[in-house]
Structures are given as structure tokens and as C-alpha cells.
């Protein structure tokens, strides 16, 4: 295999021709979901938290200190939420997409600067940043409907494929990373039923799960053993699912079931991940007008 064939395979994978409409439908789905998932998010209270809790991560280290004006944070989050909505409908689309990406980084990243990174929103920020620089505003936008002259139909292009492909890959790599971390840190001992029992039981002291199922399920050796193996296998299977289409649907269903189980048993809710799952829905098949 020479360099040329590697380059060709790379281009075939990331830049296979796709339609502007498919990417636009992904845009509508992702930004609409983001808007509703984060509608109640309020970062203003962080302004009242003492500077001794300030432990900045990533680009937040460039700030001079924690933000202390609640009104300023309130303004930013309103702007962000409006930009999510205008990105979804495609109003002032380029400005909206960039605003949603940049402010999304700030609004969703800020809480992680107070002691702990919760791994719920990072992938959403990456998806917003990828879509912000993509050509996802070339179809189904209010801009094109009202203000711009009707453009000629956009020809299929790799420009409409790569954003979906890379966002899908990063989303699946999140799960692979979680499975790989378990094996790297603890080896196969992580899958010992005693470890799973301890995880389920200890979590009851620090979280408030919506059900008490973990109490009885943790008593079962068979369940603890199954849960431990299934978690690692399902998470690791996300890596081959990037390349093997046949694995993708069953893999995504298994990952969604795993996250639902964690939510019910441990009280850790993965609602932001719905944005990632939305990347895999063949929206163009569900939208008859486009199909026609």
C-alpha cells in the first residue's frame, strides 16, 4: 500500500459526495436537541462561587480569574441559547453557527473549571464547533427562503460528508475511551463482579438514582458479572463500529441501552449524548420532500 492509495482511501472515507440537504437536516436535529436539552441550564450562580474553587481547564486558563458578574453570564447564556435556535432554523446562519460554537465552548466549559470535569458536554462542544465551520447552512435555512435569491441546487460534495463523519467518529471514540480507560487503569480485574458490586453500592452513597434497583441487583453475582463484561465489551465495540457499518446500528443500540441502565441504576444522566445519537439517524430518509 503506497502513500497515494492511503490518500485515496482517506479521501474516499471523509469526502465521499454527500448532499447539502442531509447535512442541513443533521444541523436542524442537533441544534434543536441542544436548545431543548440546555434550555434550563443556568450558569449565573457560578459568579457567586468563591475564587478558591477556580481550577481552570483548557482555554479557560487564559482568563484572569473566575467570572464574577452574574448579569454578564446571564447575557452570554441567553445569546448562546438564541444562537442555537437561529442555527437550527438557519437565520443569520453563519453568524449563528459561529456564536453557538464559541459561546457553547464557554457556557458548557465553565462548570468544569470548578473542581471536576464532568464528561457529559465535551462531545457536544466538539459537534457544535465542527458544524460551525461546515457548510451545513447550504439548505433548509430561513436565510435562503427569504433574503437570498434562490440558489441553484447544490451538487453533492465531500463538503457535506466530512462534518457528519468526523462528528460520528469522535462520538464513538468517547465510548471507546471509556472502555479503554477501565482496562488501562485496572486491567481485567475491573470486570470482576466484586468490583461492579462495589461500584453500584458505593454510588448509592454519593448519587441519588431515580430507582432503587441497584440495591437488589448488586446482590446478584450473575448480574454484576454480566454488567461488568457487557460494559467493557459494548464500550470497546465503538471503535470497530466507526469503520464497520454492520456493527454501527447494534453497537449504538447497545450503547444507548447501557447509558439508560446507568441512568436508572446510578443516577448519571446522559441527555447531552442525544445530540451524538442524532448524527446517525438517516434524516433524509425520514423527510419525504427531500427524498422526492
Amino acid at each position, binding site marked *: 500500500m503506497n502513500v497515494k492509495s492511503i490518500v485515496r482511501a482517506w479521501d474516499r472515507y471523509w469526502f465521499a459526495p454527500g448532499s447539502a440537504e442531509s447535512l442541513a437536516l443533521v444541523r436542524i436535529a442537533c441544534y434543536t436537541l441542544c436548545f431543548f436539552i440546555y434550555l434550563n441550564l443556568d450558569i449565573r450562580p457560578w459568579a457567586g462561587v468563591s475564587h478558591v474553587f477556580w481550577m481552570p481547564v483548557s482555554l479557560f486558563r487564559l482568563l484572569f480569574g473566575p467570572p464574577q458578574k452574574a448579569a454578564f453570564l446571564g447575557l452570554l447564556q441567553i445569546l448562546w441559547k438564541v444562537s442555537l435556535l437561529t442555527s437550527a432554523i438557519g437565520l443569520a446562519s453563519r453568524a449563528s453557527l459561529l456564536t453557538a460554537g464559541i459561546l457553547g465552548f464557554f457556557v458548557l466549559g465553565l462548570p468544569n473549571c470548578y473542581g471536576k470535569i464532568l464528561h457529559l458536554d465535551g462531545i457536544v462542544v466538539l459537534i457544535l464547533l465542527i458544524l460551525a465551520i461546515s457548510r451545513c447552512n447550504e439548505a433548509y435555512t430561513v436565510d435562503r427562503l427569504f433574503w437570498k435569491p434562490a440558489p441553484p441546487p447544490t451538487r453533492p460534495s465531500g463538503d457535506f460528508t*466530512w462534518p457528519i463523519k468526523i462528528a460520528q467518529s469522535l462520538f464513538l471514540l468517547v465510548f471507546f475511551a471509556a472502555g479503554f480507560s477501565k482496562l488501562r487503569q485496572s486491567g481485567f480485574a475491573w470486570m470482576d463482579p466484586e*468490583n461492579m458490586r462495589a461500584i453500584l453500592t458505593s454510588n448509592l452513597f454519593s448519587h441519588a438514582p431515580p430507582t432503587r434497583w441497584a440495591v437488589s441487583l448488586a446482590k446478584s453475582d450473575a448480574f454484576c458479572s454480566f454488567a461488568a463484561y457487557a460494559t467493557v465489551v459494548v464500550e470497546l465495540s465503538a471503535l470497530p463500529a466507526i469503520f464497520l457499518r454492520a456493527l454501527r446500528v447494534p453497537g449504538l443500540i447497545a450503547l444507548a441501552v447501557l447509558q439508560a441502565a446507568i441512568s436508572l441504576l446510578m443516577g448519571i444522566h446522559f441527555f447531552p449524548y442525544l445530540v451524538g445519537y442524532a448524527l446517525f439517524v438517516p434524516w433524509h430518509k425520514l423527510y419525504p420532500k427531500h427524498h422526492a
Partner: protein
Amino acid sequence: MFRLLSLFIAFLLAVTCFDIASGLEHWPFGSYPMYSLLYGKHFTLLCLYGVNSTGEFRLRGDQSFPPFDEPRLTDALARMPRSELPAALLNLLRIHNRTGGVPIRTLRLYSASWTLKPGAQGDEPPDQKTLLLEVSSFER
């Protein structure tokens, strides 16, 4: 154009793979290490207890100290230099009394530990509780 985009894609994949392989975190990328350590038979947690005229009771991050949630709050307190803990606890005491919960006079930080037994409900008192710090509302 595709060459530039290829560089961008390669950058995203490289940072992701680096974090996965190294276990480091470069938010919004990360190694997703949650629950990856081995858990023993004993479980230790930093816990906050409020004190008022009715006695001492445990306070949870989500309800008592918004915008903190329990995991973030306990991790933040664990990572903080010990010299900054009094200021942190005073700030938490103020946050708690401002949120409209049962007002407290004193906030205590304990290291609490439980022996994990099948059938535990999560509301059992700790087997062992060590007081690390206490602050009262009249302290500045």
C-alpha cells in the same frame, strides 16, 4: 480545500487518540476515566454536614450548594490546598443559607467511610467519620 479540512480532521483525531492513550484530559477532548479504578470493600467520601439547633445532618451538593453537584463539590474540596478550605466552606455556608434550605449555623467537613455490603441502601450513617474542618456563620 480538502487538504486543509484533512489537516483539521487529523488534528481532531490526533488529540482524541493522544488523550485516550495517555489518560490526560484536554477538554473538550478527554480520556473518559470515570469509574475506571478498582473499588475496594471500603468507600471513603468527603461529606458536608450542616449544624443548626436541631442537630447535625448531611448536606448533598445538588440540593444544598447549587450550582455544585455532589461529584463536582467533593472533587473540588479534595483537590483544594488545605489552606483554602476555610474560605471554601464559608462560601458554601453562605450559598446554602441563600438557597432557602433549612438555615445552618455551622458547616462541617468530614471524611466519611462505609464498609460496602450487598443490600446497602445508601442512607446508612458512615462506619467512621473524621472531622476535617468546621466553620461557623459568624466567622469571616
